[in-house]
């Protein structure tokens, strides 16, 4: 349970399942992690709870904690279960959570449980952030993500669809007692190869996928098919990059009917940013990997695209050098770059008083508070892009930080009671 970023009491919830108390089990999970249902599906349990299971020490397979958690939460929701309300003492302070992803949802739910008035603001038509738009369908359906969002809405959290820029953040700072920044990361890095802007035509026609593109970044690609857009990836797909999102996109392309899916990675297998079990999963899906390879240029071919690649050598310092004369081509129908998201530096750097470092918002780890005390932050915009469960943990910690800070503020306004409050 120390291995879970949200500190779900794993022995307790499993014991409750064993005792035939599935309702109690689900409430134990959801009390610690309001997105316990989606985490049960998307968490890399191999490096978290199941990785810490003591049965490894007995050379046994770990307890399947993820599946047990999925059973408990889904049984609970399927039976019409709602998030249990901790208290109904309403408070007057208002908090805005920017972004409707896991960090904001967790923050909003916890604040609501403490009686605060909370508004979640996101530019996208559907809330849920990457749970709704970015996690591959085979792991988490958009409908399941939205069901969890409804649970948070049922607590009394208000949702608003609205684009937020630096100017509106300044207004929100004035209107609200505190603001939580759970904005995540920005768009995917653009594939910087010759011809990437002009080649090809027509992978899909909805949800941000241009009808004139055979190049679509992994997040847009996943968002499009999760939203149910009619998609055709063609027979031959190349995915650039070997992170967890690249694996998601490659497996999704396979499931959408691609005959061959090839992942190009500039370094070797042991260097991939994806988890080992994700890599194994991709192999089982039939995804092929080409190592030490950089894409160089794209040209339209009579029947699809021609991707010209070059082999690279890696020296002891990790520096990559293209090998002269090593060029080769791959014929394909679609190219899906998955080479990381860029931080929302432009937006965040304009927030008054908020400091950043290497594209990440700097916070106090225990409270989520930024250099501007009224702003708190968590999730990918703080940690540079980790897991849903990390965002949930950040959001919940920030909620507790906001509650503590607001009560501190309140007691400072009534100096006579300060001692009592702090005692």
């Amino acid at each position, binding site marked *: 349970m120390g291995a879970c*970023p949200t500190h779900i009491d794993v022995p307790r919830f499993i014991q409750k399942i064993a005792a035939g108390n599935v309702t109690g089990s689900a409430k134990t999970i959801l009390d610690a992690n309001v997105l316990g249902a989606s985490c049960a599906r998307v*968490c890399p349990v191999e490096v978290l709870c199941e990785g810490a299971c003591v049965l490894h*020490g007995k050379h046994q397979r770990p307890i399947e904690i993820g599946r047990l958690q999925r059973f408990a939460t889904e049984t609970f929701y399927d039976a019409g279960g709602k998030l249990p309300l901790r208290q109904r003492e309403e408070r007057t302070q208002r908090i805005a959570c920017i972004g409707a992803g896991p960090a904001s949802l967790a923050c909003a739910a916890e604040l609501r449980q403490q009686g605060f008035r909370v508004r979640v603001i996101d530019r996208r038509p559907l809330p849920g952030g990457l749970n709704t738009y970015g996690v591959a369908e085979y792991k988490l359906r958009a409908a399941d993500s939205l069901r969890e969002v409804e649970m948070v809405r049922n607590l009394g959290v208000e949702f608003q669809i609205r684009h937020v820029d630096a100017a509106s953040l300044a207004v929100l700072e004035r209107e609200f007692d505190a603001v939580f920044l759970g904005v995540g990361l920005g768009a995917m890095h653009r594939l910087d190869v010759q011809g990437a802007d002009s080649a090809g035509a027509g992978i899909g026609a909805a949800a941000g996928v241009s009808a004139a593109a055979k190049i679509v970044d992994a997040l847009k690609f996943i968002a499009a098919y999760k939203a149910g857009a009619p998609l055709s990836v063609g027979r031959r797909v190349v995915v650039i990059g070997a992170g967890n999102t690249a694996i998601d996109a490659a497996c999704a392309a396979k499931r959408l009917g691609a005959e061959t899916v090839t992942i190009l990675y500039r370094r070797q297998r042991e260097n991939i940013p994806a988890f080992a079990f994700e890599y194994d999963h991709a192999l089982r899906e039939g995804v092929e990997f080409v190592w030490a390879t950089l894409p160089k240029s794209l040209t339209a071919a009579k029947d699809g695209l021609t991707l010209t690649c070059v082999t690279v050598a890696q020296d002891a310092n990790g520096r990559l050098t293209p090998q002269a004369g090593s060029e080769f081509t791959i014929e394909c129908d679609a190219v899906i770059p998955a080479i990381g998201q860029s931080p929302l530096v432009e937006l965040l750097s304009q927030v008054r008083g908020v400091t950043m470092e290497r594209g990440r918002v700097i916070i106090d780890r225990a409270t989520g508070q930024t250099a501007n005390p009224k702003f708190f932050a968590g999730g990918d915009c703080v940690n540079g892009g*980790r897991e849903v469960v*990390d965002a949930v943990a950040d959001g919940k910690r920030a909620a507790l930080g906001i509650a503590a800070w607001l009560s501190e503020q309140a007691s400072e306004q009534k100096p006579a009671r300060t001692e009592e409050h702090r005692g």
Partner: protein
Amino acid sequence: MADLTTNFAGIRSPNPFWLASAPPTNTGEQVMRAFDAGWGGAVWKTIGEPITNVSSRYSSIDCSAQRMMGLNNIELISDRPIEVNLREIAEVKRRYPRHAVVASLMVESKRKAWHEIVKRAEGAGADGLELNFGCPHGMSERGMGSAVGQVPEYTQRITQWVKEAAQTPVLVKLTPNVTDIRTIARAARRGGADGLSAINTINSITGIDLDTFLPRPNVDGKSSHGGYCGPAVKPIALNMIQQVLADTLDGPAVPISGIGGIGNWQDAAEFLLMGCTSVQVCTAVMHFGYRIVDEMIDGLSNWMDAKGFATLDDLRGKSLHKVTEWKHLNLNFKIVAQIDEALCIGCQLCHIACWDGAHQCIHVDRVSGPIDGPVELHARPRELGREKIAVTPMPRLDPPKQRVGPYATSLERIPRVDETECVGCNLCSLVCPVDGCIKMIELPTGLPPQTWAERTARLRSEH
């Protein structure tokens, strides 16, 4: 190969494994199949005036993965006519002359009725008679079964009646539903019993259905107290058998056929070591079938070979007198728990058990390798608990976690025993899920052995 032949007060069988009087011995066809499977003897399902049974009849207790840890029944004696049972006994004896067939009997408490049934059973060829004074349900309401076995005078009188007529050995089956089973065993001996069977089932209600509020088993909206048996009752049976066999207050002990939770050769060996002459099995057969006897014979035989026992007489009763009264135990014997760090998986069940259920001497407070010897004294580090901020370790962002110490389990998760405080209660070694990880090691006290009896005697003499 060890000789397993058994002679129980004159009843001979090729091995000590008998089927207890119960559904597995309901018919001749079953008993013959059982003998084919290897059973050495069978105590026939109790014969008496036919009864009418109810449905349902059984309920059970599961324990984790173990189904039927305890089985409860409200079935009565044989529901088939006496003459059918006796005809089948004769047929079985004709076909299996070397196997033991014991007729279990229960009739109304009249001398004439007992004389008659004894003669008929022996006339059919039964090798011995077992008097069912133990059935705790149904029959007891009619003045039979445990209604007899709970009153020493009745037990003695009916045993005497049977002995007046019997030519074959007579066993009295004892009920455990009494305050002191020895008083009934003595009464049976006074009545002339050649042997005893123990124990019969224990009064029980196994549980209640939380939807219907009906205790189990359900008979049209009502239940009744039943008889409990199976692995759960083995410790109770061993204890009662020890009590009876060690009791020589009014004469020497008689052979006992041990019953209660026996399901494999180890169980059987334990009952034989406690002094039983044969063992009887029911629940395990109802669960897994007659075939289990194959393993019981093979396992017992191999164990006897390994231990150098040629016959059952060589091992019988070897443990009986290793049970003593508490006042004769050595107060100066000290053992302490020792955790094998190389085997420990860091589950900390021992720590929890010791803190909450024992004597608070197993600590989780090690933070680094051995610096000041094998044991380090530290306060529990705060960052080990929920206070710590944990994140998903990403291959690119986070260096692999280093475990502390030389063992597979990180040292801060391996508990430490404070030997000065350890009372040697065994609890940690009982809860530990890893075989051999927690050993109880003798810590010499340097004191001569002294029992409570000796200590109080010395104190009395000093005053």
